[in-house]
């Protein structure tokens, strides 16, 4: 029952020559509005159909790139996590990989596996938060409450590992700061089994709900070649039929060792964007299980850094498996050069570009987040739909404004 919506994505020229007829009403779906996050959607509406949309972003812009030029290399880690606060491990992982490519060091395999486990748990949490926002934008507070509740067991897992609720700063150049506590593996298994049962409830109440299908099937369609032309990222790209996942195409950390398949759908509408997030949660669960089964032994910090630790630090590390911040990490100054790193975050590909001039502070740090790459959905895909479809498309692309504004 997917209705055919004439939404051939407009090219930018066609949009800019749109003359304002007298019947068009300009709606400011502003920041203080239940249907838009921290941004203002300027929508020109004629009757009930949307004629033109112009997203007004930048309400949460704090200038992470400029501030990182004023701080040490290691201090950029908490600042990189704050924009994508719902998916902090992947944000942290991308920056540290770029830094390690500058320094030219490779963390031990056990640290790589722990990075993959925490990254996949963070991906599950990010997808659940996306489903929650999608639910509240469509008017169902039940799914919002369920998804926010189902995030809590995973928050507890990483809180037990690192001590913080969502801002972990767990990954440092050379490895990770904490080794896995005892009994972590079966706690993870309990959480994963809990989520599997909950997914059955989601199927019944939300995914096969006739009103959800009626509202989101066929809405916000984006074909494969248009998705490539506009450069959108992440699950939205795979929902449009393009088989691209940085973990498969350009494997980082230890992703080459695991076999997982990249789900894709062809329709590219809001309903398939919801289904693909459910599929990816299943894939992440299988990756976590494989990683926990084949977790190698050994150190959690780079061999050379371990040797340069002071005896007290070594003793703390051997007893508790905790890497204390040594002076060496704060006086990090990589050689002159540049490095890029790409990480598949929960919402899509995070791009990092680090230029260093040999000093203590990064010379130039460029961060492009997936939500910023998904902005063309507003200008190109939304025109032509009904006013009630704006929150549906906005919720389905899982757009998180602080991450887009950095």
């Amino acid at each position: 029952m997917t209705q055919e919506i004439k939404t051939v994505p407009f090219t930018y020229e066609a949009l800019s020559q749109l003359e304002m007829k007298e019947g068009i009403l300009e709606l400011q779906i502003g920041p203080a509005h239940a249907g838009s996050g921290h941004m203002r959607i300027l929508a020109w509406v004629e009757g009930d159909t949307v004629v033109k949309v112009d997203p007004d972003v930048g309400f949460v812009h704090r200038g992470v790139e400029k501030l990182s030029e004023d701080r040490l290399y290691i201090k950029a880690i908490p600042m990189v996590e704050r924009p994508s606060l719902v998916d902090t491990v992947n944000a942290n992982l991308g920056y540290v990989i770029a830094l390690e490519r500058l320094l030219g060091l490779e963390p031990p395999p056990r640290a790589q596996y722990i990075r993959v486990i925490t990254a996949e748990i963070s991906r599950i949490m990010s997808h659940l938060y996306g489903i929650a926002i999608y639910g509240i934008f469509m008017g169902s507070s039940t799914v919002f409450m369920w998804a926010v509740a189902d995030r809590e067991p995973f928050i507890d897992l990483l809180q037990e590992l690192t001590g913080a609720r969502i801002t972990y700063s767990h990954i440092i150049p050379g490895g990770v700061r904490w080794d896995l506590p005892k009994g972590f593996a079966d706690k993870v298994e309990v959480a994963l089994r809990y989520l599997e049962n909950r997914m059955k409830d989601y199927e019944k109440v939300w995914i096969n709900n006739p009103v959800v299908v009626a509202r989101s099937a066929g809405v916000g369609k984006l074909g494969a070649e248009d998705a490539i032309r506009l450069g959108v990222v992440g699950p939205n790209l795979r929902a449009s039929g393009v088989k691209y996942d940085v973990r498969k195409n350009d494997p980082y950390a230890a992703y080459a060792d695991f076999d997982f398949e990249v789900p894709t759908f062809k329709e590219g509408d809001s309903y398939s964007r919801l289904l693909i997030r459910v599929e990816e949660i299943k894939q992440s669960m299988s990756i976590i299980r494989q990683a926990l089964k084949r977790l190698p032994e050994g150190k959690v910090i780079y061999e050379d850094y371990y040797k340069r630790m002071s005896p007290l630090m070594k003793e703390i590390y051997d007893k508790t498996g905790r890497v204390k911040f040594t002076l060496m990490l704060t006086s990090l100054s990589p050689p002159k050069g540049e490095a890029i790193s790409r990480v598949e975050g929960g919402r899509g590909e995070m791009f990092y570009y680090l230029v260093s001039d040999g000093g203590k502070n990064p010379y130039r740090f460029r961060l492009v987040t997936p939500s910023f790459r998904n902005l063309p959905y507003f200008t190109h895909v939304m025109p032509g739909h009904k006013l009630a479809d704006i929150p549906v498309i906005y919720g389905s692309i899982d757009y998180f404004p602080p991450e887009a504004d950095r």
Partner: protein
Amino acid sequence: MPCAALVRLPKAINLEEEGSFYLGNLDQVAKKAAQFIKSNKIANKMITWGYSYSLWPAYLVTACCGTELAAASGPRFDLERLGFLSYGNPRQSNLVVIDGTLSIKMAKVVRTVWEQMPEPKWVIAMGACVLDGGIFWNSYSTMLARDVIPVDVYVPGCPPRPEALARSVMMLKEKIKKQQAKYLQKGLSGEAKEEASVEQRAIRRPR
């Protein structure tokens, strides 16, 4: 000029000329009744109970602490137990929760939302960025909450834990009780209401 207006009617309908029914000077009557209610002990206790158990925040998510506000209104730290129902519209709400960094663009929106809200209103400023800068303290586009609107309760943390947010709502309840009790000692003077609840602050440029 004791006008017998029913309520502050616009000029179009002026009851005086057409010889309207004269109900006595309603402005004074209304003002006296309001002050009587505010200074009566039982009525004051009832109003305080009503205000403190029905805090509806305006739907204003300013920055990344919004995830913790969502987690706080989620099932685990359910804030609806305390009567904290997030109801989108500023007209019907009496609380603003500033969660996270206030950029200059967002400060204008927060100021307009705050001015749109009806009179007894309170502000919870959540997160280190609005207290004293947080980790974006020297950014060129952020401001502190106290420069924009008068804040009642600060919640430290980056992001603060949902339990801290629940505790801030409880602290706001105590503050409302103290604020309302001030009317009792101050007796019938109207200025107490003005000075107690709202300090008018203009927007200042970032220093």
